[in-house]
């Protein structure tokens, strides 16, 4: 409660949370309030106006509908990838950091190995080989499976710092098994940290999806913010100055990621007393 109180004192947190929950709300109730359609409703790249607030795309589809659908896709991918990456990273990090020894060395080696191989490269290789059946869910899963490395490193550092604390030794003396120590005595201490890792993972999941979709390897089953941008680039909308083809999608991605960064930074300020003024 005190933490929440402190968080609410931070303007950064309020702006970040406001922006984030605002976009979440739009994604959730948008399709109910707004009459979404994926059909051709007018001319190619018709300018905004005439009942279509953000104009039409190159197939004459309504951009507001596309954006709502894209926003939902991006949030879905972000959360899916974020949950997978954070779970794997936290498990590997806590276990390795706490146990130490050979298991830690092996896990650490694996982490250090995959941390330097660029995620984008792996994403491109997998996505390019999956010509059919490249769904939004699959992309989210792949991003999650390839993005856990740095969170494992970060969590490991935290867990290994906790390892030699008195309350852990007491719990061990008390005969608690490893699982119990990890869940009851370590996880609560680093929970705030893991949560911050999760926020960044969601943001980077959204960015990864938009990047991979932007270069034409995006989901084939739905519209995402990245596929909107890909279409805008492929049809030359950028060079023709058709701002409504990419500006709203651009702004949406940036606002979500910015909101998540704000949340993360403000939490860092509250959880990490050293950063407090």
């Amino acid at each position, binding site marked *: 409660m005190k933490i929440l109180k402190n968080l609410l004192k931070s303007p*950064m947190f309020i702006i970040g949370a406001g922006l984030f929950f605002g976009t979440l709300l739009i994604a959730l109730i948008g399709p109910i309030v707004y009459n979404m359609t994926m059909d051709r409703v007018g001319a190619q790249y018709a300018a905004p106006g005439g009942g279509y607030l953000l104009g039409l795309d190159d197939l004459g589809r309504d951009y507001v509908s596309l954006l709502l659908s894209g926003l939902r896709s991006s949030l879905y991918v972000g959360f899916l990838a974020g949950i997978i990456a954070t779970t794997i990273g936290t498990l590997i990090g806590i276990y390795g950091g706490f146990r130490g020894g050979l298991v830690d060395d092996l896990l650490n080696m694996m982490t*250090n*190995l995959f*941390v*330097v*191989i*660029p*995620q*984008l*490269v*792996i994403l*491109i*290789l*997998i996505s*390019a*080989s*999956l*010509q059919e059946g490249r769904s939004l869910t699959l992309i989210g899963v792949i991003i999650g499976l390839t993005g856990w490395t*740095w969170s494992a490193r970060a969590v490991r*550092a935290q867990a*290994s*710092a906790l390892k030699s604390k008195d309350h852990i030794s007491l719990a061990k003396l008390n005969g608690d098994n490893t699982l119990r120590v990890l869940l009851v005595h370590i996880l609560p201490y680093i929970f705030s940290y893991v949560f911050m890792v999760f926020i960044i993972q969601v*943001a980077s999941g959204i*960015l990864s999806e*938009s*990047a991979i979709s*932007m*270069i*034409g*390897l995006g989901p084939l089953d739905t519209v995402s913010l990245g596929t909107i*941008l890909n279409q805008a*680039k492929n049809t030359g909308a*950028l*060079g*023709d*100055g058709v*701002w409504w083809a*990419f*500006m709203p999608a*651009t702004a949406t*991605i*940036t606002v979500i*990621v*910015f909101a998540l*960064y*704000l949340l993360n*930074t403000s939490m*860092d300020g509250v959880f990490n007393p*050293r*950063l407090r*003024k």
Partner: protein
Amino acid sequence: MLKQYPTLRFILMRGGWYFITFLVAVTINFYLPRLGKHNPVDIIMGKSGSGMSTEDARIKEEMYLQEFGLVKVSGSGATREIVRDSEGKPVRTTGFEQFVTYIGMCLKGDLGTSFQKYPKKVVDVIKEAVPWTLALQIPTIICGWIVGNVLGAMAAYRRGIFDKVFFPFALGLSAFPFFVFGMLLVYFFAVGFHWFPAMGGYANNVIPSFSFEFFSSAAHHYVLPFFSIFLILAGGQAIGMRSMGIYELGTDYIKYAKWLGLKESKVLAYLFRNAMLPQITGLALSLGVMIGGALITEMIFSYPGLGMAMLTAIQNNDYPMIQGVTLIITTSVLIANFTVDVLIGFLDPRVKAGLQIGKGN
């Protein structure tokens, strides 16, 4: 044996480590594209094979199969021949045999043949693209790192109004996906104001050569891609340096330096030096993301570098080309990381003192 030279020992160990990583990366690079289980030759034949007689198609298919190492071959040079089974059909190679061939070819610097630009070699396409990418990315990453860190340290030190304006601005910058920022710059400064060209590495009517005309055209095309990568990088680095700096400001040595009444620039220099090391380590970790982002930025600007080569390859299902480019990217990220590690070996007093870093933290 190397006890007297801890820096050298550190560098050698890191080098060995990167070599292992490289082997893993090559393996991944080989096996991942084969997840889809489609045969590259079917793709080319699907494109170019229509309208050919069955016999012509068969000969062509066998030529491709041999070219891409999908069938067993006996002999070498002019006597190369496809190994056939009793029915006269070519004997297919196994995945592992292909892998061994692939490694052998990679070691010889041969990355195969492009589908799309057949019979052009992948290596030749990459050779044309690499100078552009290097010329764009190395200065951008270095400048972004330096400027971001100096500004971040200043924000941490001064706080106040400078920080209040600067910090949200930097945070906003770093929230932009690389390519999205590139799009905005193109829209405003190329399409809107016509200050800079929107795409390409040089003007269409200029021939790449050592002439003033070419270099001025290239420089004019350089501005927008440079800034779209540079600003985001600098923003991200500034944020990291700022929190590092705030932490360092609370330490005793800075308080002491201030009590001694040292000049502000002197204190800032101390602060910078100590907060810099974690930032260099951070640079090593984020190089992959930076280079990946910068490559996508190249695609936005149709810059004639590796990013564009990759994009064209993806659009044409040119697997050897995709694989070649990803291998080059991974290799350069590893080399760049190793360079940063060497730098750490010379800068970090803990390495110089022969202490193991990264252990027991």
